[in-house]
């Protein structure tokens, strides 16, 4: 009796686990738009001579596709890609892949390749080394690898892509600088990495451009994902008098803390203006449009015209953007943002234009110097007017 019970329990556990695990492997193999697309292709074979079986594009995600933040933003791009190239491609993806574990990333890539993927896209920094090793191994020369947020590249089958997030961050800083009354801005950040510091500096420079007295207080949470911790970090900043809170972390925790305290908030990744409770607090958010890169790139790979590149999307491309400004943004701030946005998009203005001094007094940019991408990505400190633990 005991044994039967034990076996039954074990079976239930296995079933429950496989039910959860089963959700990990997603696929948009035959969504309605893809069907109609392939029908169209079948009717017009001459128009698309290359279209035989759809090409499989595999994505590796660090989180869940509806995580309300980073991965959801990535997946929105995937869905848009599938719609745009319906019939020509089939997208598959793996969720929740540990990006600190090279073996997990390697296995995920191989699994996608086994599923027929000839294009493999790693959407988190930590996947880069694993994918690059596969690309360089010589065994996967017929596979194209694309990596988000890394710097690896080769001359046959590995490219990378990222965006100039400093541009929308700078614009959001302008709004914060104009709308703060205490001249203290709060910034909840994940880790003191270069990418995060670029964002902090851009936000601070934007705020200082319209309000020289403003200071930015930074709190690091040492986690990309901790709803309660991020909220508590924001509360700490609010208690110090910060009245605009922004973030480089993945949850809405800081935004809710700001709303509770009657302060303003600038989100990240997603336009949360519709979120309950944020009606009077949400200003805008720097956001990504990954499809702006994916659509032409995948098309070029299909056409055979793609060569490995290191893409750096800008406001002008539309790869990165500022979510629509809400009613909480003043007319003055709206006008200023539009003015500077036009200058950035035309190339007339660079967010990192000297003179810029680091908080420790050393020089980041000489007077009139405009930092290029390489210089921006070697930023390792915060600028003057930012209080951040090193």
């Amino acid at each position: 009796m005991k044994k039967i019970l034990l076996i039954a329990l074990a079976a239930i556990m296995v079933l429950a686990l496989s039910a959860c695990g089963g959700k990990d492997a997603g696929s948009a193999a035959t969504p309605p738009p893809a069907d109609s697309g392939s029908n169209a292709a079948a009717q017009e074979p001459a128009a698309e001579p290359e279209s035989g079986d759809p090409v499989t594009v595999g994505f590796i995600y660090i989180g869940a596709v509806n995580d309300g933040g980073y991965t959801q933003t990535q997946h929105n791009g995937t869905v848009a890609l599938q719609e745009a190239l319906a019939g020509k491609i089939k997208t598959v993806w793996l969720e929740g892949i540990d990006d600190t574990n090279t073996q997990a990333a390697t296995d995920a890539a191989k699994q996608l390749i086994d599923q027929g993927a000839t294009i493999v896209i790693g959407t988190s920094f930590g996947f880069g080394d694993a994918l690059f090793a596969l690309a360089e191994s010589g065994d996967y020369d017929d596979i194209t690898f694309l990596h988000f947020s890394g710097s690896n590249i080769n001359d046959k089958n590995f490219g990378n892509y990222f965006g100039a997030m400093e541009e929308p961050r700078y614009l959001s800083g302008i709004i914060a600088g104009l709308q703060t009354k205490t001249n203290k801005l709060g910034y909840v950040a994940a880790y003191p990495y270069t990418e995060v510091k670029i964002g902090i500096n851009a936000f601070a420079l934007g705020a200082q451009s319209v309000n020289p007295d403003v200071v930015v207080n930074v709190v690091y949470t040492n986690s990309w994902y901790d709803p309660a911790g991020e909220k508590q970090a924001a509360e700490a900043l609010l208690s110090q008098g910060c009245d605009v809170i922004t973030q480089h972390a993945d949850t809405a925790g800081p935004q809710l803390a700001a709303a509770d305290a009657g302060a303003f908030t600038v989100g990240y990744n997603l336009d949360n203006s519709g979120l309950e409770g944020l009606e009077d607090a949400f200003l805008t958010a720097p956001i990504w449009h990954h499809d702006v890169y994916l659509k032409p790139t995948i098309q070029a790979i299909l056409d055979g015209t793609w060569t490995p590149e290191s893409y750096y999307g800008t406001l002008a491309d539309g790869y990165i953007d500022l979510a629509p400004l809400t009613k909480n943004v003043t007319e003055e701030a709206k006008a200023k943002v539009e003015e500077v946005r036009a200058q950035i998009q035309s190339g007339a203005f660079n967010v990192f234009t000297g003179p810029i001094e680091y908080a420790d007094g050393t020089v980041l940019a000489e007077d009139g110097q405009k930092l290029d991408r390489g210089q921006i990505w070697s930023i390792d400190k915060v600028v003057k007017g930012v209080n951040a633990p090193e």
Partner: protein
Amino acid sequence: MIDFLAAAVLAGMPLLFATLGELVTEKSGSLNLGVEGMMLMGAVIGFVTAYNTGFPGVALLGAFAAGAAGALIFAIITVTLRGNQVVTGLTLTIFGSGFARFVGDPLVGQSVPKSVQAFFARVNVPLLGDIPGIGPVFFRQDAFVYIGYILVALVTIYLYKTRPGLNMRAIGENTASADASGIAVDFHKYAHIIFGGGLCGLGGAYLALVTVPIWQADVVTGRGWIAVALVIFASWNPVKALLGSYLFGALSILGFRLQSMGFHVSQYLVDMFPYAATILIVIFSTQKNRKEDQPPTNLSVPYFREER
């Protein structure tokens, strides 16, 4: 400062419920390491019931039932089937995290209904709330905080002043003797494991319903493990568990506060404090060797009547 202490009490709330739950479980002789999993189960079911019904009471019941259900799995495996408690508890953590992701999947990004949020809004206790210093910290908080006070009192009375409490402590100290004296060992173990799991579920629900009232996957982020450490820190005493929860809550936000005030402390260092404090307490209590500070003697020992 008062603002900081009030925030520390709130940060300690999920810890308090989970710690009390684990404390009751351990007092009856079972080491259930699935606190994190049960908190996640309580969080997601608390959220789902709140979202679908809009009744705070139903949400609390749902969260309690979910944590209790997780604990029931643990009880069946460890008490009836005499499986290894450590392995089962760890499995329960993984199970709970998968369960929460699976059940919560369609609701990610949804908010807790206004009616429930209003119920858990801060309430000023008359008279007590006006005491300078103490009032704002302890008596201008949300309903959960007050439930917590009552719970600590009830658990303390139950453990030390009632017959069933004595029975369950006897089981934790020496299961064979308790069995010999006619105490229904399996019944008591089941009851306390399940009740403890329910409290863990409430701790998780606090994070999902009050702290950040939006459903997001993995809201607990390691607090279940801090609760396990807290039980040791509190040397299995409910009143010390209350104080310990506030202390650990304060430690968990101390780093943020210091950073925001311009003190450049490493958050990594601050994150270690709860565990370092627990290690110190274990060393001290082992050195002093006072009976009441020691774990229940038969903690995590499976009981086979036939092998007595």
